[in-house]
C-alpha cells in the first residue's frame, strides 16, 4: 500500500518516492517485485502521471528500481537494509508512538540524532 496526503507539505512526488524507498529498504517490496504501471498508480492516487513517473525515475537513479519495456518497473535486488537498522527504526516508531509523539516530532528527534551522529568522531571513522 502507498498513501498520498493532499494536505501534506511534501509534494506527491516526494511522498511516493519516500514511501517506495522505505518499503524497498524494509524488504516489504521483495526483489524483482513488479510495481504498477505509471498510469495505474497515478489514477489510483489521483495525481498526475508525471508525478509517479518522476518518483520512479528518482528511484531508478538511486538504484532501487529498474525499468524495461516488456518487464515493466521492478525492484532491484540487494536493496534491503540490515536487520539491526530495521529493528532500531521499529523501536523508535513504537517508543515515539507510546509516548504520544507525532510522526513529525519523531522525525525531528531522528534528524537531531542524525546531526549529532554525523559530527561525532566515532561515526566519521565508520564513514
Amino acid at each position: 500500500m502507498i498513501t498520498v496526503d493532499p494536505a501534506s507539505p511534501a509534494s506527491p512526488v516526494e511522498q511516493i518516492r519516500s514511501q517506495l524507498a522505505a518499503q524497498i529498504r524494509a524488504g516489504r517490496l521483495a526483489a524483482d517485485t513488479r510495481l504498477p504501471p505509471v498510469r495505474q498508480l497515478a489514477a489510483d492516487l489521483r495525481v498526475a502521471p508525471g508525478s509517479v513517473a518522476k518518483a520512479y525515475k528518482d528511484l531508478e537513479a538511486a538504484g532501487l528500481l529498474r525499468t524495461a519495456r516488456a518487464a515493466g518497473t521492478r525492484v532491484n535486488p540487494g536493496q534491503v537494509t540490515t536487520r539491526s537498522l530495521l529493528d532500531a527504526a521499529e523501536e523508535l516508531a513504537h517508543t515515539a508512538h507510546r509516548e504520544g509523539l507525532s510522526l513529525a516530532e519523531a522525525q525531528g528527534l531522528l534528524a537531531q540524532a542524525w546531526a549529532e551522529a554525523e559530527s561525532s568522531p566515532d561515526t566519521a571513522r565508520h564513514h
Partner: protein
Amino acid sequence: MGSAFGLVAIGAVTLLAIALWAVLRRALGGTRPADQIGADGVPSGASGRKAVQRAFRAEARAALVALLVGVGVAGLLIGVGAGWSRLYGLPYALAGSVGAVAGLVAYSLLPRPSWPVEGNGSIVAELSPRGPTSFARQWVFVLPAAAACALVVGILLAGLFSATDENGLHRVFQRRSLSGWSTEGGRVVDVQYGLSSSGPFPGWYYGVPVLLATVVLVAAVYWALFLAARAARPASTELFAADTALRTLRTRFIMAASSAALAFQIAGLAAISGTVLRASHLDPVPTADPDAVPGTVPVEPGHTLALALVLLALVLAVVAVVLLVKSITLVGELWAAGRATRERLDLARAR
C-alpha cells in the same frame, strides 16, 4: 414443417442449456461476488454505501445496454441475411462476432461514476499491477482464446478445401463422386465419375470476413477487460472489497457475453461444414438391377469427421445458450448487489 422443427430444436437446446446451467451452478457452488459485498464489502459510512450502490447500478445498466445492443445488431444482421439473398448467408456467419463487438464497444464507452474522494483525506493505492486477466480465473480466458485459435485453424482448413461456385465465390465443397454406370448382362460396367459441389461451405468467401471479425472481437474483449482493470480504485481501503467484486462481475460479464458469441459462431460454422461434408461423403453403390434404388456407402474419414462436426455444433450451441443465460444472470446479480446496498443504507438511515 421445417420451420416448426427448427423452433422445437431451438426450444430444446435452450431448455437443455438452462438445465445444464442450473446443475453447474449447484455443483460448483462458491461465493458470488454480490454475496461477498454483503459479507464484508459494504462500507460503514452513508456516502460510501451510496457510492457502492451507484457504481453497481451503473454497471448493471451498462451490461443491460450492451446485451440489448449486441443482440439487436446480431438480429439486424440475421434480418439482412434473410432479406438479401445475394450475400449468400454471409451476414448469418458474421452475426455473432459483429453483435458482440457492438455490445462490447457500447459497454466500454458508457460512462461510469468515479469513486468519491473525501475532502482532504489521504488516498491509498495498492502496489500490485492490475491487468485484463487479474479479476477471474485463468481458464475463463484460456478456453475462449483456445476456441478462437481453433476457429482460425478451422477457417484456414475450410478455405483450403473450398472451391468456387458459378459466380467465382469460394463457398462450395467439391469432390469426385459417382455420377453413373451401365449394366451389361447383369453386371455393372462403365462406372462414371464426376465432380459434385455442395454448399454453402465456409470457404474463403465466408472465412476471410469471419477471420477479420474474430480478430476484431478478440481486440474488443481485450480493450474492455483492460478498461475494467485499469479504472481508478477507490481512494479508501473501505471500498476495496466492493470495487473488487464489481470488477470481478464486470470481467465475468465480458467473458460470458463474448464467449457466447464465439461459441454461437463456431457452432454455426461447424453445423454448416458438417452438413455439407456429410452429404458429400455418401456415395451411391452401383447396382445391376435397373429398378432398384441404389444404396449409399459412407466415404471415410470424411463421413465420420462430418458427424463429429455436427455433434460439436450441437454441444457448442448449448454452451452458447448457457453463456448467454449466464451473462443475463450477471446483469441481475449486479442489480441485486446495488439493491442490497440500498436496503442497508435505508436501514442505517432508519436507525
